[in-house]
């Protein structure tokens, strides 16, 4: 007899869980979409019990953190919790009824993590600083952000952090391409979008946040960082304008890995748009 509580990881990128989504606005039952900085939104999760024992009063905790390739408990903020009862084989949607207001400094681009806690399917004690969703079926992450293309270069700060008491050497890199399934697009508020025909995307990574375009050609696709325990650094993702047809998208992934494995990532859904 066992309880196995699962919030699914994303495919092919585990940080794009289909079981976490955001409903912007004041109505928790509204349509899914992208959060808007400074305005309230609600977080939803989907939890399943693949074991053969009932879990009553399982607690789902929802966190947000700055855009980061590896989200840690120590640099995340608890939004709130919700309870759920799950019989064997049950799958239930769970609402965090505490409104979440994405920080204006991040322009609404933030990571969301959900974990499900129950004594019959516990997480390790003490809890490790890294959420590490691929290692735990109870934890998942949503790092999927819509990026509306502008006419000038865009700069996005991405936090890269080392866990408390662990030194890290991390390689941060970019990839582009791939598609999202219909459900992911609905959750992102892009229901009728389709993949763009796009063979190249001009992007670069830098430790310099400036918009200086003079060294555009020298920017690399990857950066190596040495991080002391409990510290963080910002890597700046720079994206140059790309002609995209209306209602199409391109996926851009920022991936962070150590010598053993991928430790985190963010996916940007780049769409065309008019500059304000």
């Amino acid at each position, binding site marked *: 007899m066992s309880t196995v509580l699962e919030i699914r990881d994303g495919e092919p990128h585990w940080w794009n869980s289909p079981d976490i989504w955001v409903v912007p606005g004041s109505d*928790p*039952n509204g349509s899914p979409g992208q959060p808007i900085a400074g305005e309230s939104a609600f977080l939803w999760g989907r939890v399943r019990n693949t074991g053969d024992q009932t879990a*009553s009063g399982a607690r789902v905790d929802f966190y947000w953190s700055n855009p980061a390739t590896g989200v840690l408990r120590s640099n995340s903020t608890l*939004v709130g919790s919700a*309870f*759920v*009862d799950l019989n064997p084989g049950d799958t239930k949607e769970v*609402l965090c*009824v*505490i409104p979440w207001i994405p920080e204006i400094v991040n322009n609404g681009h933030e990571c969301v993590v959900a974990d499900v806690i129950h004594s019959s399917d516990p997480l390790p004690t003490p809890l490790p600083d890294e959420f590490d969703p691929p290692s735990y079926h109870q934890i998942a992450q949503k790092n999927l952000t819509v990026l509306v293309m502008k006419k000038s270069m865009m700069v996005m700060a991405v936090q890269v952090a080392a866990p408390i008491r662990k030194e890290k050497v991390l390689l941060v890199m970019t990839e582009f391409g791939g598609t999202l399934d219909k459900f992911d697009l609905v959750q992102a508020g892009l229901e009728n979008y389709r993949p763009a025909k796009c063979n190249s995307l001009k992007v670069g990574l830098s430790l310099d946040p400036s918009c200086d375009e003079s060294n555009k050609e020298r920017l690399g696709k990857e950066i190596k960082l040495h991080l002391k325990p409990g510290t963080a650094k910002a890597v700046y993702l720079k994206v140059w304008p790309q002609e995209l047809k209306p209602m199409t998208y391109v996926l851009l992934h920022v991936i962070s890995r150590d010598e053993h494995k991928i430790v985190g990532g963010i996916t940007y859904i780049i769409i065309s748009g008019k500059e304000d």
Partner: protein
Amino acid sequence: MDITPMDIRNRPFSVEPYTNIMLPDGIFDTALKKQRITCFYTNTSGATLHEVTIYLEGVGDPGILPVAHSYFFPEIKPGASVRVSWLADFENGTPGKKLVSFIAQAKGMSLVRTLKQIFVSKTTRDTVTGEYTCTVEEGTLKISNMEVIGPKDKWQPCSERYKECRPTKGPWLPAKMSMTFYPNPSYAGVHGDLPFSDPWWKILAWIVAAIAAIVAIVAAALGEGTAGTAVGGTFDETTGDVDCCTPDPGGIPGDDSMTVAGVASAIATGAAAVGLSDDADPWWRGQEATPPAKGELTVAEPVNVSFDYPSGAPNAGVPYPVHVKWEYQRITTGSTYTHAIEETQKNIHVNGGVEVEVPSVHHAFEKPLVIKARFKREDGKLFVGEYLYAFSLLRSPDDMYFLVDLADDGIQHDDKPNDGTYTGSIHLEEVYRILLKHKLKLEGLWRVYVFAQDVNDATPDMLPQIAAERIGGFMVASGLQLTFDPTLPCPLQAQATLTVVS
């Protein structure tokens, strides 16, 4: 798959867990750390639902921490309303309207999520000045002087064991209050926003009085500085005139005698709400009578009120009169306006009679003892289902109290939902163990007292000034009587008695 046809039709309300009393109008207050989020969940279909699970999913304030708990009902009949509640810690809650999410799921159906708002206020007390402050999003009510008619020094012994009742458990009848409401923000025009866009401002005064009483009761039972409350202190200038003969709270650890003190305080503090009128309170009426000049903003609205009880102490469920004198002031950025009234108000939260049914003789170990109660409205019709929060107290021959919830939900011993018969049960086999522990006897004469508070049935679509007229939390039936007359017999009136044999 069909969606489970269940709904919560009325606003969930606060029940204070030490006294089991609903707070004024069901409003939660952060001064009381633990409160029960209580509601009636109704089967809105025409069919019986089977194997229904109900749980609270979450509360929309990170400072309010509920305890997970799931209810399971083998069946819920058509139209039946089941009462469910969850203990939650409100100490770090913030004032305002908060969403609460509830889940219900019947066998073979998909779950239904019901989102309801609860109202949360924050009452604090300045330990230096003794001033109470009750804060809501729409403003702050400060009460600088709360004079009450308190318990007499000489208590009438109801029994040998209570002959030394401490006079710290109330009740406290409001005599005078000096209150000032500070709207947030200052407003132009005749009327400002109502608290939570629903109840009158007077409800905040009632909340403060109720909290002061509960704090004192809890302190009397559990000691000062108890973990149960976030404010200390009690009333100003108490005069001892009222009797209610409540048992000593905390006299026996684990019994429910605090409920009696809670009922007494609910009746007594509710008199302030009666005096300030349900139709329109002194703030609303004062505002109507003092329209400010163009361009002025109202910044503060003091109300000084005194209460008198011409027909004696107030009692639950009867149209007792309260004579009030109040003076409203509107302080604006340009002037001060006043409006004064002297009048008599009557309690409109009344009943037309209470019937209690228990067996005359009960064999303790055979089966549960079933208590049935019917509460009539003034017109003779019965209160039914979700309109009442009802409970009973069962008093042992040695005066230990046991709380028994009463429900009109058609479950277990309740024959039919919404027929006006509220039913509860308790197995004295379990009670016997507790009595044995305290060396108290099981066999003998047991007394039954029933109590009921009305439930606010305002709906979110009502205009605020209409919703404000719907007020819940008044005691409409009580086995407890308050009196100013020390020559009268013990005012704890049993509505039924039974002989328990083993």
